Structure formats: structure tokens, C-alpha cells
């Protein structure tokens, strides 16, 4: 069908009632002209009329066949079927309700799944620069015949990785917490991300107010007690006013608000655990475990830090894995100096590699059957903190 024909059919469809009336009148004229000719040939007026009507026959067929030229017969047939189906559904409301509910549930479930997959697996973290270069670091080691893979490690190990690894242009520590935030009756349990100052450099996200914290405010042994609010909390709890310089109780300490992240900024948090605020990771130990905080940057006994890296251009999967594994082995060597009973490398077979920052992506890879060794390993990631020392010796390390 050409475009011209489409428009002519569409125009005819709009005027189809007028056209049908015109056709009926045209067929009547046809009968009349034929009767007149038959009369001229010698028939009586009455006979000529009857004969003409007989010859032309029913005009219904001609009218029905003409309708095919007015509009779109396929669409008309579909509408006809639809009307027929609707009449049927109206006659049996029980069946109709079942069909409607089944369809609604089916469509709803599909839409929800798509939204979840889109949000959790496909869409990169908001504001992240070149997200394909950014990964989480996972570690694997064996203990008593069990192989464990874990995305969290000690802050000390993170410092070792910063010192030893060569494959990354950026590296930052991240930890997720739920802490009481606020004063008095306004206190609520909030998602608080303790992050390294370097994390903000992974993004192109200018604060809507104030600033982020810098490396000087995120230094061992104690970072500065400063906080950056996430946009939703700033709107809901502070009405979007200028909060820079205000004090806010987070956990057991008072923090000074220094900035507000832009709308949609969640750092590297997964769906459902979007942070309400960000604080320097080096202020977390004093807040979480004030009596046992002293050695968080020298001991290896507290696995609470995730490591986020941006791979340098031109570094392959294999080279990154080799580099991370080497950093892991060297870090374990340093750990063994403190804790000599650490499982020997020959048994632990330590390996460190890059994986997705999306927790659901790992689950999906299990379902889809990942191809690369990196992905196969990621299948078995344990979300809970797993020790890589034997025996666990918190006092000694």
C-alpha cells in the first residue's frame, strides 16, 4: 500500500457512512436507468422495473464488497472480533474476572521483573564515569576444604592493595552501615555509607550544595567527622535548606554537614540500600566499635571494606587478575607476619579478581552460566563476611 493509498483509505474510512449512502443512491440510479432502457425496448413500466431490479440483484453484496476499499479491512475485522469477544465476556463475568486478573498479574509481574533487571543489572550507577571500567574486587581462598569467595575485606588489606597493585587508575574503599541518625525524637535508622574520599572521583557529580570530603579528611587513624547528605534525605529532613555547617548526630558521634550530593547519586550502593548520607570511612571504626578501633588500619581481623577499582586502559582481564592476586599474596605475607597461623598459600590458594558491583548481576550470572573464570568464580560469592584467617585471632593481630 502506497502512502497516497493509505491517506485515501483513511479519508474514506472517516466518511464511510456518507460513501455508503452515496453508493446506495448510485445503485438505485443504475436500476432506474436500466428500467428506462428496458421500457424503451418495449416492456411495460412495471415489468421493466421488476426486471431491472432482478438483473441488478441485491445491492447488499456490492455495498459490502465496497467497504473493503474504505479504510482497512484487517482493522475492521479485528474490531469486529474484539466487539464479539467483549460481548461474550460481558455475558460471563466470572470468566472475565479470571481472565482480567490473570492478565493483570502476568503483565504486572513482567513489568516488575523488567524494572528490577533494568535497575539492578543493566543501568550503570548514576553519574559514574565510564562505568564499564569500574569493578568490585573479590577474593578467594580455601579453608578446610571449603573455597570461599568474598567481596569484603579488612581496611588494612585495602591499604595493601593501594600500595601494591598497578592495574588501576582509581581505587576506593566502601562500607555500608545502618546507623541511628538525628537527635531526640527525630532519630531514625539510616543507610550510611562510609567511603574513601577517592570514591567521589569515580563520578561526575557536582554537589548541589557545599562539597565532598577530601583525602585530608579521610586519613588514618581518625578521619574528620564530616558528612555529605544524599539528595532525598536533604529534601525530606531538611526541606532543601542550606544545611552546610549544621551538626548531625550519626551513630554515637556528632558530624558536621559539609555538602549535599546531587539527585540520584547513590555511590556504588545497590538497589534497596541507597545511602542517606556519606561519611569518611576512616571515621567508621570509632563510631561502630570505639573500644576496639585502634588497629583497624593495621590489623586484618575485621572484614568490612569493599574495594572499588577503575582499570587502566589496555589492561586485560588476565593481567588485572594476576596483579590483584599478587597484591593479595603480598598482603597475606604482611598478615602472616602479624598472625603466623594464617593458612599457608599452598592450601589457601589465594586469588583476587574483579567482579560486578551489582549484587544481582552475580545471581544472574549463576543463572546464565558465566563463561570466564572470573564470572564462574563470582557465582559463588558469599555476601556475608567470611574470615580468611585460621584461627580467628582478634586480640593477637
Amino acid at each position, binding site marked *: 500500500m*502506497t502512502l*497516497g*493509498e493509505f491517506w*485515501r*483509505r483513511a479519508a*474514506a474510512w472517516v466518511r464511510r457512512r456518507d*460513501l455508503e449512502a*452515496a*453508493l446506495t443512491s*448510485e*445503485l438505485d*440510479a*443504475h436500476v*432506474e*436507468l*436500466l428500467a*428506462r*432502457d428496458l421500457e424503451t425496448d418495449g416492456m411495460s413500466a412495471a415489468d421493466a422495473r421488476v426486471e431491472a431490479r432482478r438483473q*441488478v*440483484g*441485491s*445491492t447488499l*453484496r*456490492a455495498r459490502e*464488497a*465496497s467497504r*473493503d*476499499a*474504505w479504510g482497512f479491512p484487517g482493522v475492521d475485522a479485528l474490531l469486529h472480533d474484539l466487539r464479539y469477544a467483549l460481548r461474550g465476556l460481558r455475558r460471563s463475568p466470572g470468566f472475565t474476572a479470571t481472565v482480567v486478573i490473570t492478565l493483570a498479574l502476568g503483565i504486572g509481574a513482567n513489568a516488575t521483573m523488567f524494572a528490577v533487571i533494568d535497575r539492578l543489572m543493566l543501568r550503570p550507577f548514576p553519574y559514574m564515569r565510564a562505568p564499564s571500567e569500574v569493578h568490585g574486587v573479590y577474593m578467594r581462598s580455601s579453608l578446610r576444604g571449603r573455597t570461599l569467595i568474598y567481596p569484603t575485606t579488612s581496611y588494612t588489606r585495602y591499604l595493601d592493595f593501594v600500595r601494591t597493585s598497578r592495574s588501576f587508575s582509581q581505587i576506593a574503599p566502601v562500607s555500608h552501615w545502618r546507623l541511628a541518625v538525628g537527635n531526640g525524637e527525630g532519630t531514625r535508622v539510616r543507610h550510611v555509607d562510609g567511603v574513601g574520599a577517592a570514591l567521589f572521583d569515580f563520578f561526575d557529580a557536582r554537589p548541589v550544595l557545599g562539597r565532598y570530603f577530601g583525602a585530608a579528611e579521610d586519613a588514618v587513624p581518625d578521619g574528620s567527622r564530616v558528612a555529605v547528605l544524599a539528595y532525598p534525605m536533604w529534601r525530606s529532613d531538611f526541606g532543601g535548606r542550606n544545611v552546610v555547617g549544621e551538626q548531625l548526630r550519626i551513630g554515637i558521634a556528632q558530624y558536621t554537614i559539609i555538602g549535599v550530593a546531587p539527585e540520584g547519586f547513590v555511590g556504588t550502593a545497590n538497589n534497596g540500600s541507597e545511602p542517606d548520607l556519606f561519611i569518611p570511612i576512616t571515621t567508621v571504626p570509632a563510631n561502630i566499635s570505639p573500644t576496639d578501633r585502634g588497629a583497624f588500619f593495621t590489623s586484618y581481623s575485621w572484614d568490612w571494606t569493599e574495594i572499588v577499582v577503575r582499570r587502566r586502559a589496555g589492561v586485560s582481564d588476565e593481567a588485572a587478575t594476576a596483579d590483584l592476586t599478587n597484591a593479595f599474596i603480598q598482603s597475606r605475607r604482611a598478615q602472616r607476619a602479624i598472625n603466623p597461623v594464617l593458612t599457608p598459600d599452598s592450601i589457601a590458594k589465594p586469588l583476587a579478581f574483579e567482579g560486578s558491583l551489582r549484587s544481582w548481576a552475580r545471581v544472574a550470572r549463576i543463572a546464565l552460566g558465566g563463561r570466564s573464570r572470573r564470572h564462574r568464580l563470582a557465582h559463588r560469592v558469599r555476601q556475608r563476611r567470611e574470615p580468611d584467617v585460621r584461627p580467628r585471632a582478634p586480640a593477637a593481630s
Partner: protein
Amino acid sequence: MDDPRSQVLAGTLDLLILKTLSASPMHGYGLAQHIKRLSRDALRVEEGSLYPALQRMQAKGWITSELKKSPTGRAARYYRLTAAGRRQLGQEETEFQRAVAATMRVLKGAES
């Protein structure tokens, strides 16, 4: 008993209408009579086919129509060939002649 006059051969109705309208604009009854007369009563155009064909050809843009007063004083719809219709006529004539020639070759071959 069947009418001894042949009905229009399948596929040739469009060609006959286009050819007839290429001489002058005509209403539906005039078209049917013209074909009947020129074919010496050998071809008969069914009204049930003629009017749907006219609607279809209008949709294709080959013909247009307008209401005019006929010689009897009654208003009638006159159909007229468009430029696209004239091109279509050329194509259909060529195809029809090719089909007739091919059919004739088969018939002559079968006789020999």
C-alpha cells in the same frame, strides 16, 4: 440456466474500466452498457463487481469521481481517469497482450 453471455474474464475488469474511462468520463451504468455494447453483448459486467471495483480503483488513485447531472436530469456519479490511472492502463494493456499472446502460443502448439 446460465446466462449465455460471458461474464467479464477474471482480472480484466480493471483493464476494461480503465480503457473505457480513457475515452471520456462516465457513470457506472454507462460503463456497464459501453462494455456490453462494444463487446457486442459478449461481455457482461456484474453490478456486484463493478461498483466495488470502482471504489477500489478510487482508493488506488487511478480514478476520481464527481456528482454531475446526467442527460436524464438525475444527478449521477461520473468517474474520470487520473494520470496514475493512465499509467496503470498502459501497464495492464501490455500485460494482457502478453498473456493473450502466450495463451495463443500454447493453443497453436497444442493443435500442431
